[in-house]
């Protein structure tokens, strides 16, 4: 398991869509979020290093959608723009994803 705040490894992590308990636990300590807008928020903005690849990323989680899937809970997936071998076209991130517990605004 990578240490919190550890520098990015020299060799980029290969792209792989996976989730572990450790990703969520690490993210809960290293990736803060803010509500946007602050009054009557419509989305949560998570910003911090990915617990897998350690690249910084920003992730917007829609709290409400006009005519769409209503969201429950918060699932975050890495949206870094660093190179990750094997990553499909038109996709960002290293493939890591996890859940975090956020109080409902």
């Amino acid at each position, binding site marked *: 398991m990578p240490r919190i705040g550890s520098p990015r490894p020299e060799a980029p992590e290969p792209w792989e869509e996976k989730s572990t308990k450790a990703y969520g636990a690490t993210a809960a*300590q290293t*990736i803060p979020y803010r509500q946007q807008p602050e009054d009557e928020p419509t989305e949560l903005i998570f910003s911090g290093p990915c617990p897998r690849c350690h690249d910084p990323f920003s992730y917007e989680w829609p709290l409400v959608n006009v005519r769409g899937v209503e969201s429950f809970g918060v699932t975050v997936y890495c949206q870094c723009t660093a190179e990750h071998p094997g990553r499909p076209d038109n996709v960002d991130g290293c493939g890591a994803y996890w859940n975090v517990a956020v109080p409902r605004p």
Partner: protein
Amino acid sequence: MTLPAGGGAATPNDLERAKQARADRVSELERVRTAASKWQAGLAGLLALSTGLTVPSLGDTIRALTPGFGIGLAAAAIVALIFGIAATIVALRASGGIPRLVGTMTIGSHPDAEAAARDLRRAINLTMAALVVAGIACGLTWFAPRSEAAKSYATVTAGATKTCGEIDATSVPGRLLINDKQSRPRRRPGCGDLMDDRRQVPVTSRR
């Protein structure tokens, strides 16, 4: 900035749902605008239908009604027109938006999508209001009492028979057509105590 209360592993289903929620956010404005343009066509059709029923010969109808109902019909027509124009403008704004500069750092444009959805609801409500008022105008056109003041009545005595009714425009020299559009005689304000009738009465021309 706040840290989450905790975290854990997510399932592939969680991931798919998250991707869908974010994709919906990106496309919500486009979807609302598409829905608004379809509604706009429908609302325009409804408005055309309602105005098509009321506008032709509206002026003649207003003049033919008793003053109170004539004013009511004119007012209803004006209010329906105002509602219809407002609905059209708001529906246009919902489907096309107002050009302005936007930031590029947010996914989709949720405030714009919310505004477009709000405009669409307003346009629908305004159109419904326009239809209701146009319906009232239609009712007035069909059922409101006609003004009797503008009609010319004549009482003609031919022998022992007195006849009363409107003077028909198709009367020819030598014959006066007293016309009641009803099939049976009835009492008319312009005829005093006489029942009006539809018959041709010979008259003597004085030269």
